């Protein structure tokens, strides 16, 4: 690993292709080239030079652009595979067996295979995240390995470059024209007019413009790294919350993951377009599909528990604000946003009954049961009363004579009721279901007659918090700045040199947009009487020139 000492005296790091100072080619391979590779100014990418320890080997692996490209391709293919079937979080099942069964039922053998290979939860798999992580490593190392030597060699470059460097530039011209100090000065002036930064050293001119565009790719990578860092932060507790809650009208519930916040639903509103109001726009569609939703809205009140309070506390909630949550218009508090996401209409809320005489259907009074909080006793007039002995919200039938309820949701309410009347002070027992009554202890004289129901709606809300968004936005912005920097500017350099043998050399290089630099050069040669140049890569123009010279 020896340093390379150039004939000009500059000491270059091992692996350098073009002397950082004078530009002489430093190895045979480069010497044989007609045009030098200017991509990294011929500097030594550190990865290519040291390959000793395991750390160096790992480093060199990630430094390779080829490796980076294959990582991107692998991520691309994997991400695409993840879209073939719905991912597990879109599947309407919660436990493993149900999920497996779902994939098999809907997608058959392929579905089972997809599930068993773990492709159904691809984006959360360790290997996918590992791939993205490897891309992150590749971005950091490949950038570091290139930007530092590039910066060094651009900073170190001398105004006076060796002829062997200049003649290997794509745009090159040499000739014995009548170039005096005066024409060098006018060239300098013209270049300055063209917004070049001009340096002069003896009989050599280096004019340079837009060097900062060379940093574009690295700024761009920095943006990506910040973006990935933001995504990484989501894994830390407190940065990212995505929860759902079901909230019934009139109910006050704790908002998951928040610091003691509670939401009460005042009302859920579901509106559709009427034909009269929007015949123009939706008339046809309403005829076709029936209804078109106009608004999903939950009117809520937000409360906060006392500072430092513990779970379970229901008193001392302080009112914070009222808000209407609509689709894409969440209620916001304390970095949280609560979104309208789903709804269920018309869940049973109350049931109204009459105590009647079975024969005459004469009513002895009416009572209303709140299904969320049924009372044990409902007093009616004149000594009539109704005792609710038990309540079955989701009645499914009797098991060994005992009524069963399969959930706490009022899907099929049933009541075990005792009716007290002056005639039956000890009460008559009745089991009241929807559309049916059982009299378990013998024939009754009275009955509970169903009158009406009130329903309430349930709002499905999503609770979300994302503290990484500003970081993601910053990463995105820096990424775009890098893209603009690298695309809309280009790094142009023009060398003019008066050789000792009286010949004049011009050469130019740009990282893109060769036409522009040639045009700049045209303007300069015109005023300064410099020799004609050739584009050594554009063979057509080369042959043309030869033809002209040979007089054909």
């Amino acid at each position, binding site marked *: *690993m020896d*340093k390379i000492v150039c004939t000009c005296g500059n000491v270059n790091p091992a692996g350098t292709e073009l002397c950082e100072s004078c530009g002489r080619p430093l190895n045979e391979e480069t010497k044989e080239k007609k045009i030098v590779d200017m991509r990294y100014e011929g500097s030594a990418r*550190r990865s290519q030079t*040291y390959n000793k*320890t395991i*750390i*160096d080997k*790992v*480093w060199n692996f990630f430094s390779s652009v080829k490796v980076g490209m294959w990582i991107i391709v692998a991520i691309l293919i994997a991400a695409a595979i993840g879209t073939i079937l719905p991912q597990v979080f879109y599947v309407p099942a919660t436990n493993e067996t149900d999920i497996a069964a779902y994939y098999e039922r809907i997608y058959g053998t392929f579905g089972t295979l997809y599930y068993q290979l773990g492709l159904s939860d691809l984006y*959360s798999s*360790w290997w996918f*995240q*590992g791939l993205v*992580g*490897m891309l*992150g*490593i590749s971005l*950091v*190392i490949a950038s*570091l390995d290139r930007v530092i030597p590039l910066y060094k060699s651009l900073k170190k470059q001398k105004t006076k470059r060796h002829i062997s460097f200049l003649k290997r530039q794509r745009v090159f011209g040499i000739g014995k024209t009548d170039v005096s100090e005066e024409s060098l000065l006018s060239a300098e002036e013209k270049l300055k007019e063209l917004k070049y930064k001009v340096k002069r050293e003896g009989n050599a001119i280096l004019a340079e413009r837009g060097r900062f565009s060379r940093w574009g790719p690295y700024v761009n990578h920095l943006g990506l790294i910040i973006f990935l860092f933001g995504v*990484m932060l989501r*894994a*830390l*507790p407190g940065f990212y919350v995505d929860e759902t809650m079901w909230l019934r009208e009139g109910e*006050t*519930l*704790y908002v*998951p993951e928040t610091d003691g916040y*509670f939401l009460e639903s005042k009302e859920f509103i579901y509106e559709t377009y009427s034909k009269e109001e929007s015949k123009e726009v939706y008339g046809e569609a309403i005829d076709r599909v029936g209804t078109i939703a106009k608004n999903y809205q939950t009117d809520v009140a937000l409360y906060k528990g006392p500072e430092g309070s*513990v*779970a*379970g*506390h*229901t008193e001392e909630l302080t009112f914070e604000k009222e808000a209407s949550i609509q689709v894409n218009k969440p209620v916001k508090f304390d970095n949280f946003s609560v979104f309208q996401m789903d709804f269920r209409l018309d869940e049973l809320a109350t049931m109204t009954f009459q105590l009647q005489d079975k024969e005459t259907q004469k009513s002895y009074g009416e009572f209303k049961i709140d299904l*969320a*909080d*049924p*009372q*044990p006793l409902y007093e009616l007039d004149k000594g009539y009363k109704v005792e*609710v*002995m*038990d*309540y079955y*919200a*989701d009645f499914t039938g009797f098991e060994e004579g005992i009524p069963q*309820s*399969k*959930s*706490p949701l009022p899907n099929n309410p049933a009541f075990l009721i005792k009716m007290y009347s002056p005639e039956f002070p000890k009460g008559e027992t009745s089991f009241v279901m929807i559309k049916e009554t059982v009299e378990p202890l013998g024939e009754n004289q009275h009955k509970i007659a169903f009158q009406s129901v009130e329903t309430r709606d349930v709002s499905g809300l999503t609770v979300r918090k994302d503290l990484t968004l500003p970081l993601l936005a910053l990463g995105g912005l820096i990424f775009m700045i890098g893209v603009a920097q690298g695309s809309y500017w280009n790094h142009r350099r023009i060398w003019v040199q008066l050789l000792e043998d009286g010949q004049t050399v011009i050469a130019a290089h740009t990282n893109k947009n060769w036409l522009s630099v040639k045009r700049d050069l045209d303007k300069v040669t015109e005023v300064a009487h410099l020799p004609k140049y050739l584009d050594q890569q554009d063979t057509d123009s080369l042959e043309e020139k030869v033809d002209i010279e040979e007089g054909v």
Partner: protein
Amino acid sequence: MEVSKLAQSKKRRFYMRTAILAVLVVAIVFTVYSNLNKEKNAVLQVGDKAPDFVLVDMDGTERRLSDYKGQGVFLNFWGTWCKPCAKEMPAMDNQYGEYTDQGVQTLAINIGESDLKVNSFLNRYGLTFPIAIDRNKSVMESYNIDPLPTTFLINPEGKIEKIIKGEMTEQDIANFMDQIKPS
């Protein structure tokens, strides 16, 4: 001189690369690991401090977890519709009688049902240990309850000793209560 300088810079380069690689690898391993454990992390784990709560039981007594410091707490979450709950609760009641004097408290938390329903349930099974209703489901949220029944054994230091998902036999219950007896 030249050689030692070169060796030095090589050394520096080695440490630099090792440090950068280490930082990147640690960051990625941590991210992948915590993403994989996200669902598990959301749920309380053995060894965690049991989140404090305060609820009023069916007799009107305020029950605050932190008041039981120094005693074991057998914390059960249940619902009247849940059949395994109905099976294990009478057994819990028997053991409650055995272990309260030995410093193990029993508390059953119902998930947001009505007073009437909970009262009829505890009358039917003749339950005597404290039962409270988590009306706004905040205790359930902080303990991440799924499925019912779920039982937490909380030791005298207030740490979670064990989490039992599903039904327990009377023998299980006795063993568990024994496990959190203050020494």
